[in-house]
């Protein structure tokens, strides 16, 4: 495990990562958690065109996230990514 945490918004499509920290404030974090986005959850970025919202898959569900929200989710890239 490394210390280099990235923002989810910086991942490319196809990259996989593990959620480490949420910094979006209580209300938003609680909604993220109910959709499966908790620390320790594995996710894969499905679509990220560098602007606008992005799509990620977490716990078998596709979630659309605003770029602002994605920027507040800190993740650690997995080695097994194919991106």
């Amino acid at each position: 495990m490394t210390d280099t945490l990235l923002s989810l918004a910086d991942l490319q499509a196809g990259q996989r990562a593990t959620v480490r920290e949420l910094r979006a404030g209580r209300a938003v974090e609680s909604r993220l958690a109910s959709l499966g986005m908790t620390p320790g959850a594995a996710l894969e970025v499905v679509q990220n065109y560098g602007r606008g919202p992005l799509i990620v898959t977490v716990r078998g569900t596709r979630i659309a996230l605003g770029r602002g929200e994605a920027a507040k989710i800190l993740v650690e890239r997995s080695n097994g990514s194919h991106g």
Partner: protein
Amino acid sequence: MAECHPAAPAAPTRTRVEAGAPLLALAGQPNMGKSTLFNLLTGLNQHVGNWPGKTVERREGRFDLHGREAILVDLPGTYSLTANSPEEVIAREFIVRERPDVVIAVVSAAQLERSLYLVAELAALDAPLVLALNMVDVAEQEGLRVEPHVLEAALGVPVVPMVASKALGVRDLLEVVEDILSGKRLPAPRPPEIRPDHAAVLAEIQARIAAHVPAPYPPAWTALKLLEGDAEVTRTMQAALPPETWQAVHAILRAHDDAFLAVASGRYEWIGRMVRAAVTRPRVGQIGLTERLDRWAAHPFWGMALLAGILGLVFGLTFTVGAPLQAWLESAVIAPLAGLTAEALVEAPAWLRGLAVDGLIGGVGSVLTFLPILVIFFAAFALLEDVGYMARAAYVMDNLMHLMGLHGKSFLPLFLGFGCNVPAVMGTRVIDSWPARLLTILIAPLVPCTARMAVVAFLAPAFFGAKALWVTWGLVLFSLLALVLSGTLLNRLLFKGQRSAFIMEMPLYHLPNPRTIGLLVWQRTTAFIRKAGTAILGMAVLVWALSYLPGGDLNTSYLARLGQFLEPLGRPMGFDWRLTVALLTSFPAKENAIATLGVLFGVSPEAGLSELLTAAYSPAAALSFLTVTMLFIPCMATVAVTKQETGSWRWVAVSLALFLALSFLAGTAVYHLAAWALR
């Protein structure tokens, strides 16, 4: 539309004691097929209303359960039961307070991990649970197999595999429900435990509060919700606990204000154990249909192009099929009906004839001729919603919505507004933050609805001949531009430019279910007819009375006097008193404008009005009138639902002031610019 009972007390939903009807509740996250199952069980035997004091739709139905009537309540679709939204509070309050005999939790086999999250919360509520394991067919297409028996053993709750869209497994589900009602089976859910590092804190809180938790709430659950930072439960316990106990508990909570992630993680660990035990993946690595479709449908460019294409198709269909039907109803049903009524009432006093023919048939009847257009629109919308496309439309529109401080979800009600602004305002319920929802309600009436398009479709060719199509497109674009500008401005002024979070599930695509779509269209259509029979009817009679009294002649009536009184206001926009009156009468229903002009110019609306209008008004005045029609205060029904959905006259006043100012400014500007350009 659902009636509003803002002050109604939380009445008990059943008379179970007297009727002996078992009370069943349907719980589940969105997109799990919960509505499909509800519709399947209850069919047309359902009642749609509001939860007391809330603008959340409440659906209740009855069905025959092995020879006796059972009541089924469809709880709002929520991802969890934490007090993030009114829906979540409603769902859990219902389970805790009404104590349904069986709670059917609908989960999707294709998204088991996510959908069990709500089940984890339900298990902690001690509810008599049955798991309806829906969409096993979709799961198999995605290469997943779920073993119901393993899941059942792990959860301690009966599990019934189903495909609700094909009515498979319903009988098995009802058998299990019956077994629970008769006491043959007792569900004993094993709720998840909190992550070990927070177990001691949870135990401590529970010990401190146990003696003070108010009646129907389970103490263990209450302690957990306190630790989760649930606002409702915190408020309740602050009131229930003695001050010194509350201070001690509050100090513990403050020291662990990140505990809700430990609670959530505990739930997902519990879910992980279930899923590992019960799910096998015979095939892996195949790209699902959803992923392939989304490469196009959610692409920033192609997604927009697809959306534009779909919108074009829906409008094309609405106007090529719906508009002729509307015209046919007008000429083949309403006009002969008016003629027959006039003949039948030839002996009756003139005022009665006028009331029946001009007031009732002319007012309400012409509103009802819009039904075919609305039905086509509702059907297209319901189809797109049901197959899962609407979430993609919201996704690709997110960027544009950002301009107004809104996000993609606001696009859905606005789209509905092209059909009718009333369901658009009600449709804002999908938006989860209140400022964003309010802003969407305020700007929704700027979406040109079919009724306003009908006025334009009638008047534009009369004034502009072959150029009418361009004028029409120009007016639509102008309205949408006004929408974006007002949205941006209101967001800055009222909400200081803040933006709410965009977090939305993208459901899997699936084949449309005709039953779900049919019922949705049926409910929206009957709601519209009910509205036509009540609010619009009353207003039509009122307008007719104003146009008839005191002397029976429109030109000397109260309405005409009002128009003449307000004429100075209309003058900057190039209106004479007749256009001003036409605009005023468009308040009950937009398309009244045409009928009013017809009456004021003394012709039947079908023949000759075009020529008379062209002779009476310059193109500049015509363009100004059409512009104002697009931007004027929304119709009476829209104002009524705005009051209902915002719960305050204050926002109604803001909305009316906004549209009056906007239409006056735009009308004046258009009139003078056009007069100058068309010299």
